[in-house]
């Protein structure tokens, strides 16, 4: 039962990441792309945690934690750049 749930989870999250990728490539605005990137990152965390359960190894958790922290900082930095880095402003 558990391995079935994990495999299904991989498929569902994989699909979610494909959709994120589609939005990332399609845009149309830069903010859409940042949002897509942020969501892609969050889904990657889920995938990593799921992989950790499959391998029954808690080592992947540290990766998930770092991914969460880096992803958040990256999103904030990009948004701040959009808000403040404008030449016109």
């Amino acid at each position, binding site marked *: 039962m*558990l391995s079935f*749930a994990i495999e299904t989870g991989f498929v569902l999250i994989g699909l*979610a*990441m494909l*959709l994120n990728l589609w939005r990332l490539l399609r845009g149309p*605005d830069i903010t859409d792309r940042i*949002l897509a990137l942020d969501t892609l990152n*969050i*889904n990657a965390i889920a995938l990593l945690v799921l992989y950790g359960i499959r391998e029954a190894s808690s080592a992947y958790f540290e990766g998930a934690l770092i991914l969460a922290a880096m992803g958040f900082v990256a999103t904030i930095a990009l*948004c701040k750049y959009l808000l403040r880095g404008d030449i016109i402003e």
Partner: protein
Amino acid sequence: MNPAVEFLVASLILLGALFALLGSVGLARLPDFFTRLHGPTKATTLGVGATVLASAVFFTATQPGLSLHEIAVMVFLFITAPVSAHLLAKAALHRGKDGSND
């Protein structure tokens, strides 16, 4: 592993993955930026939250001692998601005002 625990972990994983997918469907499908913002901030965050919770239950059940550090990721995600959404929305508004929507 106890079948009840296994069932709990499996359902949390499925629930989490389903919500993560739904959030991404929202991101791909909805018509404009502000509506798209709703999917990832809520559904995806809850989805990852459920997956991480599944991991906490799984490792607590299979390994000696409690496995609590997953909770830290969950709390972190729930605190940061609204902040990212807020800043993204602000950035989008800012760009909209300049008329530099390209």
